């Protein structure tokens, strides 16, 4: 690890100015990803600008009935927030499916969005990786690629994005608020993470020195009926092979509104818009769910090691939607009993 200077700015504007003024400076959140990468030599900042104590640790309801989540809110506190648990269980469940309790106590919302791939070649300096070292190649193509992408990959990179939280936020139509050299801007989360293309070293559209200050969730009443399912190699403390986030609104037996996203399948959290389109107005049956999953996954291009992800993604999606429909039925039954 190369020597670095450490700064603790007092406010967001000072944090942005400090990073812009110093070449090789990086923001430090909880450090659970960045410190690891500095130990591994993946990144070598010459200055850390600690933003973890900035006054961005509030969760507040917005005038429009949504939620504004400060960038330094800890993952565990967001998962426990009563508004989140009540109005969008998908987000609480996704957070609680990620990492470990100790890590969630430290990890921030901003850092979670910007965590980098867990591709083993990205973490191993002795191998080729276009994400770590542009132009060096991709050892995962033709190598170990069990954990890798089946959607939206390129011949330059087949890494996946590891965040669970971001997959849930995607179905909630979240927006990322940033402060950068050009002032404040609000980016839809759907356009925040990039596909690899020929520049896989860039995970997101953020510019150097651009600070995430908040994530905003609009009001989405039907997200009360939402769920997150994560399939992994062990019951806890493991990254997703495949995950599904879903929010569903039914009208009788028909899908009125729906939001779907996959984790573990692509270089970014993957909003399943084709599946959503196929389901809007369709009967809420297993058959429609299976069809919708197939429509979305028709573009999948699996590699030697990860072909299992395609049926796994389809089955998980179907199972999550079936669970949401059954849950709705159960709630209705409960009500009837209550009314008696």
């Amino acid at each position, binding site marked *: *690890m190369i*020597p*670095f*200077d*450490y700064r603790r700015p007092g406010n967001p504007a000072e944090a942005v100015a400090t990073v812009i003024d110093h070449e090789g400076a990086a923001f*430090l959140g*909880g*450090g*659970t990803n960045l*410190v*690891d990468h500095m*130990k591994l030599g993946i990144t070598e900042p010459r200055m*850390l600008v*600690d933003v*973890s104590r900035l006054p961005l640790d509030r969760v507040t309801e917005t005038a429009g009935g949504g939620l504004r989540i400060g960038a330094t809110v800890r993952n*565990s*506190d967001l*998962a*426990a*927030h*009563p508004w989140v*648990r*009540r109005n969008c*269980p998908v987000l*609480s*469940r996704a957070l*609680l*499916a990620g*990492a*470990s*309790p*100790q*890590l969630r*106590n*430290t990890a921030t919302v901003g850092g979670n969005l910007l965590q980098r791939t867990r591709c083993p070649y990205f973490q191993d300096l002795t191998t080729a990786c276009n994400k770590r070292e542009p132009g060096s190649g991709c050892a995962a193509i033709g190598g170990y690629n069990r954990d890798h992408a089946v959607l939206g990959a390129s011949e330059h990179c087949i890494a996946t994005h590891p965040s669970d939280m971001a997959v849930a936020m995607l179905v909630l139509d979240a927006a990322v608020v940033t402060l950068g050299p050009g002032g404040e801007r609000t980016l839809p989360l759907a356009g925040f993470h990039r596909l690899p293309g020929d520049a896989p070293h860039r995970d997101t559209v953020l510019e150097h020195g651009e600070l995430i200050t908040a994530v905003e969730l609009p009001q989405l009443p*039907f997200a*009360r*009926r939402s769920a997150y399912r994560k399939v992994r190699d062990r*019951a*806890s*403390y493991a990254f997703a092979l495949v995950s599904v986030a879903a929010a569903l609104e039914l009208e009788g037996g028909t899908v009125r509104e729906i939001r779907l996203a996959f984790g573990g399948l692509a270089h970014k959290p993957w909003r399943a818009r084709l599946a959503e389109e196929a389901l809007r107005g369709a009967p809420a049956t297993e058959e429609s769910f299976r069809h919708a999953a197939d429509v979305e996954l028709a573009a999948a291009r699996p590699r030697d090691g990860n072909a299992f992800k395609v049926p796994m993604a389809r089955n998980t999606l179907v199972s999550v939607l079936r669970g949401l429909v059954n*849950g*709705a039925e159960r*709630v209705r039954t*409960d*009500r009837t009993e*209550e009314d008696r």
Partner: protein
Amino acid sequence: MDARITLHVDGDERPLTLDTRVTLLDALRDRLSVTAPKKGCDHGQCGACTVLLDGRRTLSCLTFAVAQDGAEVVTAAGLASYDGEPHPVQRAFLENDALQCGYCTPGQICSAIGMLAEAASGHPSHATPELADAGGRDGPGGGPGAPGGPDGARRTTAPVVLDDAEIRERMSGNLCRCGAYVNILAALRDHGATGVTA
């Protein structure tokens, strides 16, 4: 680059000058000779380095000491009372044979204490039923909200019932290569049932 910081470790004020590259774990072990927290993996994957940082369980291997200037750190070595009486969680580990080689144990114990406090303040885990399931009335489409807690800033909902599934999930951030899990579970089951947190 050197930085001058002060850590409060197990009740003592410990000023020190160290390179910014030193993690909290290395500062504790190598600079302050507080060797209770262990280095299992140094990459956030095992939990052996768990300490209570300003009251919350945290991995000391993934934070730089300089970023914790002024913090209150409690390690497993600082849990006994002044007259040497072990902490109730430490006693439960002893009584239940909840260790074999002992390497993961200081991390397990700090993690367990943090875990009991989180559960008492209503923090959910992946094993906790959703509010809708728990209440049965707070389902999609309406119903009363979760009871907001007046007692304590982090209190969010009713205390969690620590059954075996909850304890396993909540302790899943601490690996044990000896496989002492069965007795760790037994030690913590006592606490879950009696609600002992301190």
